[in-house]
């Protein structure tokens, strides 16, 4: 029933619905590209931004949508559907979502076309922007790359929800009443991702050069081909080779941005686009081979676009995350805050830090926080030295307090010493020993010490060492009286290390000790009656005591 609608209004309404359908498809497909979308607000209207929203038009998508619509508009029984599916590298595919733009018969005659309908369509598009980030397929699409890709397909006609599996859910984005019917936008999405749960969909670099362009056998009226939600020109080779790092580096020339990672490339919204120059907002190179590609590739993808995707918001978030992760796992990497224009710096690797092939490292300016403070390389050496010298201090002070005879650690001992290692006691090395055996204590004399100790031997000289001097002609040096900080040796005449070793284990029970005395079991038993008699005398006292307890 369109009697009340003027022809101008009718024309406007048709135009609105057509462009709304095209914009809807753009929003949905762009949301499944796997990248963050970013467009710029403009206070002065350019005249080409439908619904006052800056939504890019990817030409291929527009082309597909127009092909599917074939000049028609969504009407009762004829809905426009965008199907989002996932395809693994092995060829398995699964439908994830179906977005439907439907029209029903419920008309709203009173509504003003040029004003209210337009604004409500704009609001509906905003809702669509919000909802497309909220369905489960969004997170999947952000992680697409090596293991799987996200494809889209547009068809017009009846909605087919069979491929979504059991128990799919629907979310209604919104409705707009018009004089010719009510437009409804909704999404049905799969929740049973069972076949995916066994796989690990990690962030991996996207594949360069792969074409996913094949017909899927479907019992659907439309046999439109599936299209990837990431864009390649036709005619690229289908190899799975990664470009070498050097090639990618040429594309991504160093141009650092001082902006925080979440800022994106802003593009001007125009109906037509220029090919973007391969300028990207960052060139973070991370030392691990795989990760280096993830950013290089996503930026270099831009250069292959026939028209400006504009969505090259150079996933800055990912490399930053990786860089931060790397810092955590390789704390010895040296990273100096890069200046603008980013000189990659080769980190100094400590001897024990295993590092992957690429050694070049560049960082953002301090605002992103993805780097550690710079440490000069020399400090690492001093650190190791101080560690080892501390390590050697302990046997020294053990030595100091136990022995009357001072023996330097790492001094070579005569061979005729008894070593406790031959005994069967576990941890015999560390059991409390008599003086004679102390020399063989590995705490005192670490087995491999003589070689490493030599640089230090000459440097250790005593100043006023406590206790007796060595008097031992074997000794090359005399121990310093080593006092650990905060230790008091007036309570117990021993130092911390000895104290700890001595009292580490509970003392032996006296009843188990053999040398308590000659008292035998028999004598114990004999003395029992006497003890009992004594206790019986005091029984009243005991009773009174018990009563006080109650």
């Amino acid at each position: 029933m369109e009697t009340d609608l003027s022809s101008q209004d009718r024309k406007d309404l048709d135009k609105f619905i057509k462009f709304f359908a095209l914009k809807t498809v753009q929003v949905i497909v762009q949301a499944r590209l796997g990248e963050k979308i970013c467009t710029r607000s403009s206070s002065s209207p350019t005249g080409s931004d439908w619904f006052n929203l800056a939504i890019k038009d990817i030409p291929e998508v527009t082309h597909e949508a127009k092909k599917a619509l074939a000049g028609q508009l969504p009407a009762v029984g004829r809905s426009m559907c965008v199907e989002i599916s996932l395809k693994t590298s092995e060829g398995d595919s699964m439908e994830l979502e179906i977005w439907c733009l439907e029209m029903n018969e419920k008309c709203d005659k009173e509504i003003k076309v040029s004003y209210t309908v337009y604004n409500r369509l704009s609001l509906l598009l905003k809702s669509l922007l919000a909802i497309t980030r909220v369905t489960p397929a969004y997170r999947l699409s952000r992680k697409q790359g090596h293991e799987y890709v996200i494809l889209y397909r547009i068809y017009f006609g009846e909605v087919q929800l069979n491929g979504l599996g059991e128990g799919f859910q629907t979310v209604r984005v919104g409705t707009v009443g018009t004089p010719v019917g009510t437009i409804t936008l909704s999404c049905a999405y799969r929740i049973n991702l069972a076949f995916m749960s066994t796989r690990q969909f990690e962030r991996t670099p996207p594949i360069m050069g792969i074409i996913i362009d094949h017909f899927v056998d479907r019992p659907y009226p439309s046999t439109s081909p599936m299209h990837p939600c990431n864009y390649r020109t036709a005619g690229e080779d289908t190899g799975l080779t990664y470009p070498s790092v050097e090639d990618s580096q040429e594309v991504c020339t160093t141009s650092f941005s001082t902006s925080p990672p979440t800022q994106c490339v802003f593009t001007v919204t125009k109906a037509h686009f220029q090919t973007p120059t391969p300028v990207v907002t960052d060139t973070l190179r991370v030392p691990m081979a795989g990760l280096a590609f993830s950013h290089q590739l996503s930026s270099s993808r831009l250069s292959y676009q026939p028209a400006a995707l504009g969505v090259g918001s150079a996933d800055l978030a990912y490399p930053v995350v990786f860089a931060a992760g790397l810092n955590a796992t390789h704390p010895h990497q040296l990273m100096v805050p890069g200046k603008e224009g980013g000189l990659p710096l080769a980190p100094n690797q400590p001897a024990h830090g295993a590092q992957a092939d690429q050694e070049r490292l560049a960082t953002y300016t301090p605002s992103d926080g993805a780097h550690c403070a710079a440490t000069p390389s020399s400090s690492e050496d001093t650190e190791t030295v101080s560690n080892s010298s501390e390590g050697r201090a302990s046997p020294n002070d053990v030595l100091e307090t136990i022995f009357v005879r001072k023996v330097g650690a790492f001094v070579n001992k005569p061979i005729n010493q008894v070593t406790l290692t031959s005994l069967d006691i576990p941890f015999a090395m560390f059991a409390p020993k008599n003086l004679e055996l102390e020399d063989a204590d590995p705490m005192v004399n670490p087995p491999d010490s003589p070689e490493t100790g030599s640089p230090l031997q000459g440097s250790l000289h005593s100043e006023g060492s406590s206790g007796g001097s060595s008097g031992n002609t074997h000794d090359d040096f005399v121990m310093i009286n080593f006092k650990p900080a905060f230790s008091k040796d007036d309570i117990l005449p021993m130092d911390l290390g000895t104290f700890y070793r001595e009292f580490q284990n509970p003392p032996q029970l006296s009843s188990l000790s053999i040398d308590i005395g000659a008292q035998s079991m028999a004598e114990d038993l004999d003395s029992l009656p006497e003890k009992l008699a004594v206790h019986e005398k005091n029984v009243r006292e005991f009773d009174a005591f018990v009563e006080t307890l109650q």
Partner: protein
Amino acid sequence: MNCRSEVLEVSVEGRQVEEALLAVLHTVLLHRSTGKFHYKKEGTYSIGTVGTQDVDCDFIDFTYVRVSSEELDRALRKVVGEFKDALRNSGGDGLGQMSLEFYQKKKSRWPFSDECIPWEVWTVKVHVVALATEQERQICREKVGEKLCEKIINIVEVMNRHEYLPKMPTQSEVDNVFDTGLRDVQPYLYKISFQITDALGTSVTTTMRRLIKDTLAL
């Protein structure tokens, strides 16, 4: 005219408070902002373009869309930061709520000041939980992400009921309806306030009321 009121509740970890609130506030403001109006002769006007931007959360597995306006983002971050600090300093159970109120100004005659008539209020109740292990935190990341997805769907559902919205104003009235102070977008007039509550829901002495737009100057 009645003011419609919507309440959302979220249970988050301390470090997720800001992002969760920003996600909700930005989603609401996305729907309640238009491009800048440019009035022409004959009472017509044209509207500027609103750009949008995806924002990934650091502490929640979630991405939300906001309008591309740095000024607006800064204003929201400022008040959300104050709320988070107040929540932390309150030392209570970690309960608070933030209200985003859309209002219209109605000019009154002198000596009375302009009236602010709210027409939509969004209240977000925040409950802060403390988690002990890293595993719990990881689960919390995902769960809060899912909860926020539900909240966004709720918000969108309310928005699409197409209930009362202020009439589009003439040039002289535009400041009574819209906030024209931003450079690139034009949200409806709004103010944000928050309260820290104790477990009983009553406000404690540390109630703070902050106004983003001060409209009550006499």
